[in-house]
Each structure stands twice: as C-alpha cells, then as structure tokens.
C-alpha cells in the first residue's frame, strides 16, 4: 500500500497539477496548430500519448546503458522510432487524421513534452513509474488539446466533432479558429489552470523566518533581529 500511492501520483500529477501544456507550457506548437477541430486535437493527443508511454518506458529501461554525454541524440532516436511506428499506423488505418495533422504528426519527434519527460523523469526513474508518468502526461496533454479543440471548434466553426450546432453554425466567430483565437483560448485555459492550482499564500508568521526564501541573504538575521514581515 505504501508503495502504491506514489505510483498513482505519477499518473495523476500530469492531468492538472503538472499539466504539460497548461502548467509546464510545453508542446505549445502542436497545441496551437491542431486544435482548430476536436477530432484532430484528440488524434494528436492520443498519438503523442502512445509515443510518450513507449519512449518513457524504453528510455527508463536503458537509462543505465545510455552514456550521459550523448543522451539527447539517443532519446531522439528512440522517440523517432516510436513516432515512425505511430505515423505508419495512422497512415494505414486513419488516413483522414493523417491529412488533418499533416506535418505535426512526424513533428511529435521534437515535441518538448516527450523529450522533457525523458530528460526530467524517465532518465532518473524505474520503468513502471516512467510509463505511468508518460501516461499521465499524455492524458493531461490530450485533455488540454480536447478542451481547446472543443472551445475553438464550437465557437469558431459552430460544430463539435463535425456535428454542426444549430445557433452558432450560422454565425461562427471565425477568429477562434484563427491563430489569435488559439492564443486567446490558450491563455484563458492557462489562467484557469493557474487558478485551480493556486493555493492561498501562507503568511510569514505561519511559516517563520526559516522558510523565507530570503533567509540566507536577509540582513536582519545577520544583525540578530527577527524579520518584521
């Protein structure tokens, strides 16, 4: 039981607390580019999640074999292998999605989320936590894309998953599927995620001087006085 709790945390932290798109601000380019529609956003999210889980697991398994000097090229090679597999599968079974994602599907190779998780997590942790971390981050990425895609497609095109919505579809607010609208929705969602994550700021009296970030450099401590604030 004591072992299990942190594992679940590896999975759930990626969804809101460390959401790769909204809190870590990684993978911004595909986020803005493919969220003009819900289906392409979901496709992108799922493809990236598959690559993320597989590459995290493999990199974690090889973490003691890969020399640290050439680790980035090694990671890229592993990631590229999985992206190629995913791309071939998508091309074979979902050609429409392949067309919708265009260049952004092969560009998963250089997606910051995947490389970032390899560098920050998979290279330092065991296989199972790494795979779960990848899955959590992937779900967080997919959820953020899904939310953005929904908002942008509903307001900007008057449809959802291609199903047209009566009132809005006659007068869609086009700007939402244009780049400025993408940035706007992105900013709004980041603000919402910040609000969700923010905790009430602790007051100095409760924390005490030792926890103050200025503790080491604070002049008042050197003088032997307690800090006033």
């Amino acid at each position, binding site marked *: 039981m004591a072992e299990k709790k942190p594992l679940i945390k590896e999975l759930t932290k990626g969804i809101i607390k460390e959401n790769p798109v909204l809190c870590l601000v990684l993978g911004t380019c595909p986020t803005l580019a493919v969220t003009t529609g819900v289906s392409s956003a979901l496709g992108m999210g799922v493809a990236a999640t598959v690559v993320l889980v597989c590459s995290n697991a493999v990199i974690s398994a090889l973490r003691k074999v890969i020399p640290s000097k050439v680790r980035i090229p090694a990671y890229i090679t592993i990631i590229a292998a999985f992206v190629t597999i995913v791309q071939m599968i998508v091309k074979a079974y979902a050609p429409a999605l392949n067309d919708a994602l265009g260049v952004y599907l092969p560009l998963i190779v250089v997606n910051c989320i995947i490389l970032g998780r390899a560098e920050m997590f998979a290279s330092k942790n065991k296989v199972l936590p790494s795979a779960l971390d990848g899955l959590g981050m992937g779900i967080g990425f997919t959820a953020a894309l899904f939310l953005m895609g929904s908002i942008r497609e509903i307001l900007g095109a008057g449809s959802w998953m291609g199903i047209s919505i009566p009132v809005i579809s006659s*007068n869609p*607010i*086009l*700007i*939402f599927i*244009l780049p*400025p609208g993408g940035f*706007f929705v992105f900013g709004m969602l980041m603000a919402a995620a910040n609000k969700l994550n923010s905790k009430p700021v602790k007051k100095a009296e409760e924390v005490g001087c030792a926890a103050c970030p200025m503790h080491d450099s604070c002049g008042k401590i050197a003088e032997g006085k307690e800090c006033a604030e």
Partner: protein
Amino acid sequence: MEEKLIVSASPHIRAKTTTTNIMLDVIIALMPAVVASIIIFGFRALMIIADTVLVAVLAEFLSRKVMKRENTVTDLSAVVTGLLLALNLPVGINPIFAAFGSVVAIVVVKQMFGGIGNNFVNPALAARIILLSSFPTAMTTWAKPFWFREGAVDAVTTATPLAMYANGETTSLSDLFLGTTGGCLGETCALALIIGGAYLMIRRVISPVIPLTYIGTVAIMSLIFGQDILFQLLSGGLLLGAIFMATDYTTSPINTKGKVVFAIGCGVLTFLIRNFANLPEGVSFSILIMNILVPLIERATNPRPFGEKESKNA
C-alpha cells in the same frame, strides 16, 4: 492614489482636468459624427450606437465588479470606447455582433490588462479588427447612404469609395466631404470629423501633432505615388483614425518627437496597405501596429536629461 503622486512642496496649482472631463470633451467632439451618421444611415445607426455604448458600460461595470476593483465606470471611458466602436462598424451589422465587439473591447482588451491607462492597444480598434476577422461578410457589407428610403438595410448595398477606387471608379469630393458614401457609421462624413477634431484641439484635449503628421504623411505619400491627394485624405477611416483613434493617450507616445514618429509610421502603413496590400483600407491595422510599437518609440525618443552624458555602452 492620485494624492500619493504629488511629491513637490506646496503650493500646488490645481487643474480642473479630470479623466471624466476629457472623456466628456471627446464625447462632445464625436457628436457631429454621430448626428451625421444618423442623418446618412438612418435610425438604425442610432440603434447600433446605443447598443455598443450600453454594452460597453455594462461590461466595464461588471468586469470591475467581478475583479473586485474600484469601479471606473463613471469616468466615461467606456462610453467613448462604445461610441468609437459603433462609428467603426457598418450600419447593417447584427446588433449581437456589435455587442460582442463591445465586450471584447472592454473585457479582453481593456480590463484584462488592468483597465483605463493600461491597455496596450486602442480597445475600440482591436474590437473592430476582431469583428472584421470573425465576421468578414457582415463587416464589409456597406449599406447605401439613405438606404432607408429604398428598402431593407442588407438589400441596398454599395462599395466604399476606396474599394470602388481599386476597381477604377471615382467618387465625387463633395460626396466624400459630406459623407454620402458607403462606409462605417462615423468615417464617411469628413466635415463632422473635422469639426470634432477642431473642438478637441481648441479645448487642448489632443495635441494637433499626431493628426496633422498622420494626415500629412498620407498626403505626401499620395503626392510621391501620384495619387489624388484629397481623395486619399477624405476617403476611408483616415480622418476618424487620425483624430480620434491615434490620439488615444494610453496608446500613443508621450513626447512630441515620439508622436511624430508614431504618426509618420501610421501614415506610411496606411498608404502602403491601401495601395499595395489586399485590403482596400488599412487605417485600423496601421494604428494597431503602431500602438504595439509605442513602447519602443518611447524608449528611442526619451529625452536626455539636461547635463547627462551619453554613456559609451548604450
């Protein structure tokens, strides 16, 4: 807040200028254009103006309430934004779109950046651009002047003088001066805009530097490229933009040198967009682009304090 800014020793001269007074002067200066738009485009023009102004004021009030900040609705700046937005819309626009524009101007462009004095671009112009990219057809369907004598607002349409000019048709200068052409509510009647501008300059609400440099730049560019100068000056949103939009305190440079640079930039961009780009009119985009450049212009034209030596590293 204002009290804290006074740092010198007494006695102080108290000026009667307040934000509310300035805004009231701008509203008075816009009245000729409002009246002209109602005469030319009918009662529907008044409806659009009332719509945007009411929604803007309501949006200002509610957003300050939600953000739990001191309510600034009484400084009339929201009324000015609403008025300016309405004067930048075609008469046939759906009132819901116009209201959406007001909300964008006040909530997104103004209040999200901290309210009056903190917006980085002119709220009314930004809202106009957002409406233009969101509803391109509705925003470029121009009702004919005096359409109400002939039929429904979307049935009797015409092109703007600048769009007609691009197709080789000309518009008479008297039509341009009096405003009996197609276009946005407030931009057609040059006479009303000049009266409003003169009032603002006499009351010293705006300095003449920006409008005159802006209009002068367009005139010189027209001369260089062999265009009809008066036509370029009187058509489109140039006068409305130069007098009322480019002179916005928050989004234009503080000192005269900066103002000249800013206005020349606006003029050059306007002329380039009008004559060499896909769009028939470019006043809104030029002012918006220059608004964004204002911090850089300010830095470049910041006067050197007397006696300060130029540092070698700068």
